[in-house]
């Protein structure tokens, strides 16, 4: 008999309530039950990081979490990054620096980077990120197409531009 749980969570700010089998992974739940197919599965054993999402703001491998563990959580997926048709600064930076080719690993890298950028946000008291630090971050996930250079550059550029923007007085409206 299936072990079904009723859970409630928010995904990209939207409330969801659903019945989910205890053994169902968060990744399968997001993709197949809730339709967030931007989260991709590359290995299902926690190495490649293609399925990375933010759970309460922290990067998590959604293939290594059960859906029921996200009960009451705030989950962010790649679908929540853009503002309608307008790409976020990080997404635009990936495009500008050729940080993607097939795009399969890209959602995982974007969410990994968003988690890092949030932790190292301007005003958080952290030092200006270095390329070595970003490269170490990027080494958490696998990409088979790009050779990583564009990904490292895109994350670094976004980290710097967010700090610069925060340091400047707001533009008059």
């Amino acid at each position: 008999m299936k072990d079904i749980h009723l859970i409630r969570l928010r995904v990209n700010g939207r409330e969801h309530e659903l019945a989910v089998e205890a053994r169902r992974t968060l990744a399968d739940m997001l993709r197949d039950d809730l339709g967030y197919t931007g989260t991709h599965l590359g290995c299902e054993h926690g190495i490649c990081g293609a399925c990375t999402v933010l759970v309460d703001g922290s990067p998590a491998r959604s293939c290594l979490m059960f859906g029921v563990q996200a009960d009451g959580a705030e989950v962010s997926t790649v679908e929540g990054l853009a503002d309608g048709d307008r790409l976020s600064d990080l997404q635009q930076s990936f495009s500008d620096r050729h940080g993607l080719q097939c795009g399969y690993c890209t959602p995982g890298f974007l969410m990994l980077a968003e988690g890092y950028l949030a932790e190292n946000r301007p005003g958080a008291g952290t030092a200006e990120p270095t390329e070595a630090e970003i490269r170490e971050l990027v080494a958490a996930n696998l990409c088979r197409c790009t050779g990583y250079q564009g990904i490292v550059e895109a994350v670094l550029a976004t980290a710097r531009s967010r700090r610069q923007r925060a340091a400047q007085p707001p533009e008059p409206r």
Partner: protein
Amino acid sequence: MTGLRTGPARAVGASVARKEDPRLLRGLGRFGADRSAPGQVWARVVRSPVAHGRLAAVGTGPASAAPGVLAVVTAADLPGRPEIPVRLGVQGIDLSGYLQPVLAGRTVRYVGEPLAVVVAEDPYLAEDAAELVDVDIDAAPAVLDAAAAASPGAPRLHAGGNVAADFTLGYGDVAAAFARADHVVQTEVRIGRHGAVPLEPRALLAEPDPVTGGLSVFGMTKVPVFNRDLLARLLGMDEAMIHVHAVDAGGGFGARGEFYPEDYLVPWLARTLRRPVKWVEDRAEHLVAVNHSRQQEHRLAASFDADGRILGLRADVLHDNGAYCRTHGIIVPELTLAMLPGPYRVPAYRGRVRAVLTSKTPCGTYRAPGRFEGSAAREQLLDVAASQLGIDRVELRRRNLLTPGELPCQRLMSTLGTDVVLDAGDYPGLLAAAAAEAARLGYPAEVTGGRRAGRRRGLGVAAFLEKSGLGPQETADVVVSRTGAVHVYSGGTSLGQGIETVLAQIAADALGVGPAAVSVVNGDTDRQPFGGGSWASRSTVVAGSAVHAAACAVRGRAAEVAARMLEAAPADLVTEDGAVSVRGDPAARVTLAEIAQATAPASPYLRPGEPSGLSARRRFEVTHMTYPYGVHIAVVDVDPGTGRVEVLRYLVAYEVGRAVNPALVEGQLRGGAAQGIGGALLEEFCYDDAGQPQSATFMDYRMPTAAEVPPIDVLVTQDAPAPGNPLGVRGAGEGGVSASGAVLASAVRDALGLAGSVGRLPLTAARVQELAGGGAR
């Protein structure tokens, strides 16, 4: 007006933003597993847990009775015991005795071989039930080493023996070339078994149409038209009743999109069960099911005159093809031999290859098939020769590279059914340019500095020849709709390389519009039923040329209709910025949208008998490939204690004839080099003595991360436009990986000061420790 904006004056040659990016960055790509159909059921393949043996029984009872199960199918249930045919037959060699059955019948020949398939209402239930299938195998000895498999007395994997093919390629009087030599240099290099391993596992969804009897398939890539036709034949269907839809693909690299057993099983199940059937492979399956590649043993000998000029080359290659010949047949061993002389002047050459079957996952192509392997062996031979002859490595290569005056150069061999004719180029010029670029970037100084600081630092250099633009044909349709938007329907497929963008750029220039006005659909068999697919670095060359021809035809037709609308002579018209106008009279102007509207049925501008619509279909045919070429240079540090090889600097210099989108070319080269670093240093499919795979997770199969791949320097040259196509382009897909094994072997050999070759790739820590002669294994 919609769709038409003025782009750059010329899109070709500009690094325009990729059309693929917005959807992929927003998580809105349509990958194989992303689509679901109402009422779909899920398939799970049951695979052999034993490397070799007689399949005594497959017990399906408990699995059939499990919750949610619709069917459990074994070989006996399949009509006609279907086999996977060879897609590319070469050298007139019959491989029909070595083909893989869709499901194993009496014999299993590798761990991972499909034995049965379970269909259930949900993927978790399908997996549960698959574990209940009771497989009874009488194990037989596994044959894991190609040399052992080829020897008399080895256990036979197939009725015809273990050697599927044994053939030679070559030209000239090799015996004489060795008889009159001043020096003969020999070397042995083994290349490790590794593979494409795209980040997206395979996925398929087959939806039967109960009304028409047709079938929609999602998830086939690379060669969708070929796969559609083959599927139609195997299922006894009319090919037009099968619609393979365009999908995004999470990397191809040669392995994805070939016709595998599942490509028959999933559509057959959908037709049989009259339900949409979905199948998504997991990574553990992928690593034992999808084509492996590369595993070869090379024994090479070259003869030289007193000045170090090559007189003759001999090669004896053992190619380990795993348990069966799949769709690629023996093209990897053939390409290995045909490309082995590389960019050098080799007056006499004889290569022999034996394609040997072993109890391992079957092999196929992986990006730069035959060239990664052959370049590694040949360039090690040249490094050893340089040491033995006392000539600088670069100088030895310079002396032996074919000069521009010696091209075109026909080598009396064929590969992939084409004659080998090296078309045009300046090989020594590119070697000099690469050396100068490496010097400018400080590579030699880093080597000197590192050594002074006590490091075991090495410089590697390797030159190579690539091939691209395989025919025989590609077809494209270009259609202008009533809004003026331009639609390209190409036979290429989007595997992540950016071919939508490249084809849009080519169409845009030919039509006089901006690339933003062009949308490209690749790999949809209803939209383009004559496509050849994306492989062999062919799409920019052959699909690009077909799109160019179709777009030029549309431009001509647009001018013809515009002339009627404007009551002007066609010769007085100019086409630019999405409109046709009368030269010197910009007010006399009609837009492409207006012209497209003027070709609607019943339009007064259409003459009797003329077809309606503003569109054209064109076919580009080509009998010879075009041969790009390049040089890799790398600097490594070797730690003799830990065996770690750290890649510090890496330069890819590559001649592409003409870069349609330079950023994408650079991306191809960088990504290729990263994969090559994996194959040269980290990745290997290992087996234990019983034939059990030891590399079935990403913990054991080590793909490079950002920590192992340094920033890759690239030097893209456009000095030798390809003479065989209207765009002058050469393929850029494989030049990044082609010589990566060669250059890293060269660098490690240099760092360790070896007299002979490195012996084998990958240069894993254990292997490097052995070579360094220090440290425990």
